[in-house]
């Protein structure tokens, strides 16, 4: 494999990464070839010593996914981190997917319920005084506000739980991956 071929395959494997990260990684490997050439090593020798570019790309991508999840806990970063790690084959997808699917479904359900509760509480709070709820205006205001608070609290707790769970999956996969990967390679 030539230098260009290696870098090309690596770059293809890294599609989807933020441009700045991609540039940094490509610069790392280009510098590696340059340093090796200065020592008089041939391109094909260096490419062979570096290993399979697709495999390296998967590993780098998973690492980048974990990094963006560390920096910002957004749903898309959580997805990127987990998809990247699944790409490594570190977790048994067949076992994990139904489990993950169930958990994700439950979490989405709770979130939906919390949002629904919040809106319902808001409606009672806003419309209560005009519709003549049993217990009078004050009870409607208080009750509506209470339901809103409760829903917000449930939402916040579920969010904290979700973040904790994604961290757990990432931690487990990285630990697992280090042990498993060599066995897959040989």
């Amino acid at each position, binding site marked *: 494999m030539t230098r260009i071929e290696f870098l090309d395959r690596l770059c293809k494997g890294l599609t989807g990464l933020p441009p700045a990260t991609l540039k940094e990684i490509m610069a*790392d490997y280009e510098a590696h070839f340059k340093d090796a050439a200065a020592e008089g090593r041939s391109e094909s020798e260096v490419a062979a010593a570096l290993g399979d570019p697709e495999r390296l790309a998967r590993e*780098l991508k998973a690492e980048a996914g974990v990094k963006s999840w560390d920096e910002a806990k957004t749903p898309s970063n959580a997805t990127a981190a987990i998809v990247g790690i699944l790409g490594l084959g570190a977790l048994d997808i067949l076992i994990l997917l139904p489990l993950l699917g169930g958990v994700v479904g439950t979490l989405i359900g709770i979130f939906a319920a919390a949002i629904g509760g919040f809106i319902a509480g808001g409606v009672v709070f806003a419309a209560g005084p005009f519709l003549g709820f049993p217990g009078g205006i004050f009870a409607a205001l208080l009750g509506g506000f209470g339901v809103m608070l409760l829903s917000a609290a449930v939402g916040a707790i579920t969010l904290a739980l979700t973040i904790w769970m994604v961290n757990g999956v990432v931690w487990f996969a990285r630990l697992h991956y280090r042990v498993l990967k*060599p066995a897959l390679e040989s």
Partner: protein
Amino acid sequence: MPETIDIQLKKGVLGLCVLAVLARNESYAYEIASHLSDAIGMGEGTIYPLMRRMQTDGLVTTYLVESSSGPSRKYYKLTDAGRAALDAQAAEWRGFAAAVDALLEPVPVANAPLEEA
């Protein structure tokens, strides 16, 4: 797969080795990679994902050094967290190695440090 244990061992301690190399001298990736591939026969490609992981974990930071030929070079150095990780992992490694050494002795040695970790 006769070499599996060999590779697994090296992979497991590669992070520790990088920390140790950087504790001696701040260095750039190619130098670290060739150092380690000479010393413990580690594949060169693994160094880059590993360096990025160690950067994410806050164990190393990078800085650029102007080079007389071509673009500036990216150097790595240990952070305080990196030095702490080196101390902890080195102690763990020594305990583990001592325990394995003791098991490899043909005759049980009295007071062998089997549970030192």
